[in-house]
């Protein structure tokens, strides 16, 4: 596809995003406001996470970024939020200050330290299950610190762009995005050999194909449609994307905006009156729609949310989906958000065992799965992604960074990712698998990139693409 020229909408979008981003300076007023907002959102669970860490650092080896530097251990990163909480939220912290590590950021350097902590955390939850006290450091780092980093101006421009694109539904106005969408739908129609069942009301299954799904794994979109069709289900999908990768605002710690997006999405989905909503994305989209949505809406949605792998399991067990079993040396990588934060650990094993006699688990799987190191926005922080997105938006990659400082930060982040991903690649190597199947676009990108980097010849597939090809 030819590179498109930037549309007026894109130009306006970039200007708007960049107005709120500044990687330099120390905006004390913004910091105070962000801190006050973060503290006002505390509940008893977050209070426990902030108050009950004993500093044993047992969580440290669980984090992929600990292997880059011990200063990136979860306890170290979350401590930055605890500094602020103790100073602002506890009596002893106010009285004893430095003795209790109670202090607020005082300088540009302190804010840089915060943003670095945020983008050396994938929010994979490995620290949560390895903490002897059940403290979810990831939630503190990506939640509180992420919010403070973004609201004081230190957000990766590209993710902030995605956020605005999603919340204002600008993807509908960006020609290259819609071109991709239409191409995927055209190919799906060819694969199915009949018109797609767009925009049906009251269907049993609503396949929520988001913009990012079509962009990152079109073969999975088509595979999922084949499975739904071959199983003879009453299903539908939206004729136009409803969201980019909802709620992408959460990736940069904008909880309020993320909840707003969830409400908009719920309204949009509800118009179709589906009984079940099926997701392809096994990244943060899954726990948000499956577990956070009721909290955001203040009620349970009128439909059930399930991941495509859960549906596959159900259909295979019911005999509605028959697979041609192969001998592929295939393994499953548990995306942290689908498995550790979403509880979907057994279903993929069942589905892949049905698809291949050569299926094997990774040495570290399920709750103990190694993170790929690319989540939490880190996967967006590399030159390749900037260039690709620049092409799609019709701008230069330089237009997608706010300053040289941000660019340097992106390069450093990519360098650190290349160390963090190694543990995962070694785990895959040990399994002897030739195909890694997973369900999160970031995991796919990270594992494929990591295997290339460390000379491991494997294919990385989305489960819907893989299963789509194994249907009898």
């Amino acid at each position, binding site marked *: 596809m030819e590179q498109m020229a930037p549309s007026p909408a894109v130009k306006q979008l970039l200007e708007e995003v960049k107005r709120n981003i500044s990687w330099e300076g120390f905006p004390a007023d913004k910091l105070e406001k962000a801190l006050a907002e973060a503290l006002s959102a505390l509940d*008893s669970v977050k209070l426990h996470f902030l108050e*009950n860490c004993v500093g044993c650092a047992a969580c440290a*080896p*669980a984090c992929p970024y600990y292997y880059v530097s011990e200063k990136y*251990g979860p306890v170290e990163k979350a401590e930055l939020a605890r500094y602020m909480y103790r100073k602002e939220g506890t009596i002893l912290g106010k009285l004893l200050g*430095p003795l209790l590590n109670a202090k607020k950021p005082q300088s540009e350097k302190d804010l840089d330290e915060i943003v670095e902590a945020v983008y050396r955390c994938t929010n994979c939850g490995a620290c949560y*299950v390895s903490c002897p006290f059940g403290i979810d450091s990831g939630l503190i780092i990506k939640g509180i610190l992420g919010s403070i980093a973004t609201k004081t101006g230190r957000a990766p421009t590209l993710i902030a762009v995605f956020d605005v694109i999603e919340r204002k539904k600008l993807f509908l106005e960006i020609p290259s995005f819609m071109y991709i969408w239409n191409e995927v739908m055209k190919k799906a129609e060819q694969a199915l050999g009949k018109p797609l069942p767009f925009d049906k009301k009251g269907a049993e299954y609503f396949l929520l194909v988001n913009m990012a799904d079509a962009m990152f794994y079109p073969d999975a979109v088509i595979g999922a449609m084949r499975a739904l069709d071959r199983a003879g289900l009453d299903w539908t999908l939206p004729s136009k994307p409803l969201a980019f990768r909802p709620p992408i605002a959460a990736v940069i710690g904008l909880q309020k905006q993320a909840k707003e997006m969830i409400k908009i999405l719920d309204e949009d989905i509800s118009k179709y009156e589906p009984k079940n909503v099926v997701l392809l994305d096994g990244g943060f989209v899954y726990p948000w729609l499956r577990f956070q949505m009721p*909290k955001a809406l203040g009620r349970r949605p009128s439909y059930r949310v399930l991941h495509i792998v859960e549906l596959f399991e159900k259909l295979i067990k019911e005999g509605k989906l028959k697979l041609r079993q192969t001998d592929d040396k295939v393994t499953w990588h548990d995306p942290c958000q689908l498995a550790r934060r*979403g509880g979907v650990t057994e279903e993929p094993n069942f589905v892949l065992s049905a698809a291949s006699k050569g299926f094997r688990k990774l040495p570290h799987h399920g709750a103990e799965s190694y993170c790929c190191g690319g989540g939490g926005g880190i996967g967006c922080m590399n030159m390749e992604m900037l260039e690709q997105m620049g092409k799609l938006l019709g701008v230069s990659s330089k237009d997608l960074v706010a300053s040289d400082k941000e660019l340097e930060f992106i390069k450093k982040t990519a360098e650190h990712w290349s160390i963090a991903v190694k543990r995962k690649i070694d785990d895959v190597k040990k399994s002897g698998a030739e195909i890694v199947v997973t369900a999160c676009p970031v995991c796919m990108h990270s594992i494929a990139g990591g295997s290339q980097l460390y000379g491991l010849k494997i294919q990385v597939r989305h489960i819907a693409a893989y299963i789509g090809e194994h249907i009898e």
Partner: protein
Amino acid sequence: MGYLGGSVTDVYSFAVYYFFWVAIAVFAFGAVYRIAKMVLFWRRVVKAEPRNRGVGAWIIGLIRTFVDPIIFSIKTKPHDFLAGMVALHLVGVIPLIFLLAHHVAFFAYWFSPYKIIAETGLWIPLSVTTSTLTITSPIEVKFVDSIWGPLTVVLNGDVLAILAILGTAFKIGTKVMEQIHGLRHVRWSDYFSLGLLLFILLTGYMAARHSTGTVTMDVGTYRTVLGLHILGAEVLLMLLPFSKYWHIVFGYWYGKLHEWYDLRVQKGLV
């Protein structure tokens, strides 16, 4: 005159007859404050429909929630596990505090149901050679006849105290090293907390070992050392709700049960 009627004449009587109640009052205030804070911050939210994996998975999940971090620690930080978990917690401080014969007698004095530990023979003797509560008076030395049987060779106050002292000293050393490495989670208050624990252990050990057959401490010194031990323990009690030691009382239990509910019950992680 102390609050309990005894005369306050030295550190020992001050700790036993006077400061005890101050420590209890501060602890009670702190505990109520910390728990009330948690209750006040509780917010009602609408929860998603839980994933149903069955009661068996919940039970296994509960066990794994508590055990997994221990296994992880053995695999990834064996030195920390041995010093921190084994020496300081599992065979050191916890049995020493709650099961040492002297402590059982002391706790039972204030809270009579605690006598059950003595009555069932679960209390741990001070040493491998005696289970009497004092070795000040001339006594006949004989091998301890306890429910713990041959285990008393290792399961006695002396060995446990030494393990706990080693564990605490290791943790202080770890904190120093972490600070040298520039790790930001080390707090100055950590040194106070661990230093206080070491002080209690050393004075307790010294008081318990005040005589080994020849007089090494006169009565006045003994009372001072034991008084300092009790006073230290009372300061620790006061510190519990306001420090990392809160995990013994509340943080650990709340945290693990919450994690179990969140990940295993609600989300169905198996």
